């Protein structure tokens, strides 16, 4: 009996790996996932007040420290607002001059973006994925970027009929081509291998400037550039918290604190699109 169950498990693993995403086992998983969805949604709704209370308590402990940081940031931002206003006037004039139409990050997805509830959260640092309550029936495809109002969450890595698997930025396999919004230094955002949700901006050459407090955003697909990406450009990722370098490493050591709190995702927006995918180099 036990042998049969072990054999059945091994056969399932083998078939699942070898078959196409439209295969029998994927179909079974899709149907099962659809059947489980109402229960997961109900459990999430019931647990949400308790979860929010837990998060609120945890947040209180960090609030004081965050308050000090925010005061400093507020002062800095006030200066930047003045500069930005001037910059915006200049930009508007230049746009008129060049007749250049530049859309913001999410504007291209206004009609096709899908809002989805998060059904299951990451199991641990080992498996940094979430399951969302929307799939191919909503127009979601593999490699679609997933965001919240705070910034980038990750990308869709598996799509079933009514559910999809999203690999978070904190996953070991996640790589996002990004740039420093202030200095335009380009690099790749990866997880920092530590216990926290810290990221680091890798592959930033030492001759490029990156400052603490700078905002890191997605660089998008850059034609001809060696660091290309599926992610649309200008999606906020996080803030630079530490910049360092060593003699042996050709790149800078840039630590980034993500804007998104990956531990309490409730709803996400999938930037679905009907356009053909960009070709990776």
């Amino acid at each position, binding site marked *: 009996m036990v042998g049969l169950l072990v054999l059945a498990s091994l056969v399932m693993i*083998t078939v699942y790996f070898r078959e196409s995403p439209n295969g029998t086992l994927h179909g079974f998983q899709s149907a099962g996932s659809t059947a489980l969805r109402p229960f997961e949604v109900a459990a999430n709704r019931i*647990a949400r007040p308790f979860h929010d209370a837990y998060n609120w308590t945890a947040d209180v402990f960090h609030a004081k420290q965050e308050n000090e940081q925010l005061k400093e940031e507020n002062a800095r931002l006030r200066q930047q607002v003045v500069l930005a206003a001037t910059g915006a006037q200049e930009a508007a004039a230049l746009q008129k001059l060049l007749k250049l139409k530049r859309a913001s990050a999410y504007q291209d997805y206004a009609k096709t973006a899908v809002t989805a509830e998060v059904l299951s959260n990451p199991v641990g*640092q080992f498996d940094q994925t979430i399951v969302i309550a929307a799939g191919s029936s909503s127009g979601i495809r593999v490699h679609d970027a997933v965001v919240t109002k705070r910034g980038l969450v990750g990308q869709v890595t598996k799509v079933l009929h009514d559910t999809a698997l999203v690999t978070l930025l904190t996953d070991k*396999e996640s790589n996002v081509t990004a740039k420093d919004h202030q200095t335009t230094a380009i690099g790749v955002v990866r997880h920092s291998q530590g216990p926290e949700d810290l990221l680091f901006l890798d592959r930033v050459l030492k001759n490029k400037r990156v400052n603490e407090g700078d905002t890191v955003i997605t660089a998008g697909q850059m034609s001809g550039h060696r660091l290309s990406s599926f992610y649309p450009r200008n999606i906020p990722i996080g803030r630079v918290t530490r910049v360092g370098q060593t003699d042996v490493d050709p790149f800078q050591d840039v630590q980034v604190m993500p804007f998104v709190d990956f531990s309490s995702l409730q709803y996400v927006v999938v930037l679905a699109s009907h356009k053909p995918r960009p070709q990776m180099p």
Partner: protein
Amino acid sequence: MIAPAAKAAALFFFVTILQVTIVSEIGILGGSPDLVLVTLVAVALTQGSIFGAVAGFWAGLLLDVARLGTLGFTSLLLTLAGFWIGRYGETTGRDRAHAPLLSVAVVTVLYAVGSLVMHFLLREPAPARVVLIEELPGTIALNLLLTFPVFALVRRLFAAPAPPPEVEFVG
């Protein structure tokens, strides 16, 4: 046999939903509790090896479906865990007071190691340091905290009905 099997099926369905939606979000000391694993240990220890293996297979299948993971991956690990704990219960452990705590601690470690090995064999990322050093101590502690309430619940759920009172003829 059918009634306990139906109870176990329903129990693991409920526990899996709880695990993926609520329990996995609880992160303390770097780890998060594994309610499915603790429940499986409780069921296997009280119901035996075959029951434990089948329950493990079912629980693994539900988890793989709910998390959109590789089908069969968790089933394989939990089938073996259920069978092994069931055998321990049948042979030596069932009546010992420390058996639940010992079983949960050992199975948590073996499950983490087995999971790492499986990921490695499937050529998926298998960060041993993260799993064994950063996550495992917290997960063991949280699983041990869950052990007694879960065992009490499982014992109550699978308790055999009380035998009818014996009739004594007098005179």
